[in-house]
């Protein structure tokens, strides 16, 4: 898989098949490798789990369209003040601004469209590249006394 010119100082790099069954193990592996997991338990178990799971799911389902020949790259940097995760698929990208708010009354009964919304709610930063096939998630650690995390 081609690397991005914007380098991350990765502590962990996983290349995953476009198989949603691999998501749970990959996310659990990342959370288990976090050096400060005991201090940040809830922010990892809820916020980071949701962020990673939804980003990987979107990459496999909508980016790579489950194509077994395509891979998803997951890069993680455990920094002093935050965890940065980047997920890259081999699809054609999409416009994240085109995804409607799933909480409005007209969208509440729709079965899809909540993944990106949850990522934005539970991570401190969600940034897409111009093509839309790579998302970078940032979860700040020890952020402003947010004991339970939740609202990033």
């Amino acid at each position, binding site marked *: 898989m081609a690397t991005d010119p914007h380098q991350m100082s990765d502590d962990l790099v996983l290349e995953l098949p476009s198989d949603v069954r691999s*998501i749970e193990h990959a996310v659990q592996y990342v959370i288990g490798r976090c050096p400060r997991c005991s201090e940040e338990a809830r922010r990892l178990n809820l916020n980071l789990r949701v962020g990673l799971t939804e980003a990987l*799911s979107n990459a496999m389902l909508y980016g790579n369209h489950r194509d077994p020949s395509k891979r998803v790259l997951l890069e993680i940097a455990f920094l002093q003040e935050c965890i940065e995760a980047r997920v890259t698929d081999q699809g054609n990208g999409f416009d994240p601004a085109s995804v409607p708010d799933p909480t409005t009354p007209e969208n509440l009964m729709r079965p899809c469209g*909540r993944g990106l919304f949850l990522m934005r709610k539970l991570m401190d930063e969600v940034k897409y590249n111009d093509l839309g096939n790579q998302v970078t998630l940032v979860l700040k650690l020890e952020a402003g006394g947010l004991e339970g995390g939740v609202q990033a």
Partner: protein
Amino acid sequence: MGFRVLQNGEVTLVEVEGQLIVGNRQELKQQVLDRLEKGDRKFVIDFANTGYIDSSGLGVLVSLSKKIREQGGELRLASLNEDLRTLFELTKLDTLFRIADTKDKALEGF
């Protein structure tokens, strides 16, 4: 990770073990739809032993609720832990479902 389907009087009770995620949501959907097809109308899904529900899992619950309502039935949810309840509140799905603290409370008066 799996599902257990039980009958409690008129109510079909589904227990979700582990997670409800993109990898197993179709299995839950099919099990509930099979019961709906056979005439069951009252459903409780119990999450007492569920650690995580992703957006696909939430979507399946929305889809099932809609189908059950269309048949004149009701889907109730029970035993969401604090994290799961947070996901329902963030997505405002707590306004769509009747959510009980326990399975027994969900079954009361159903």
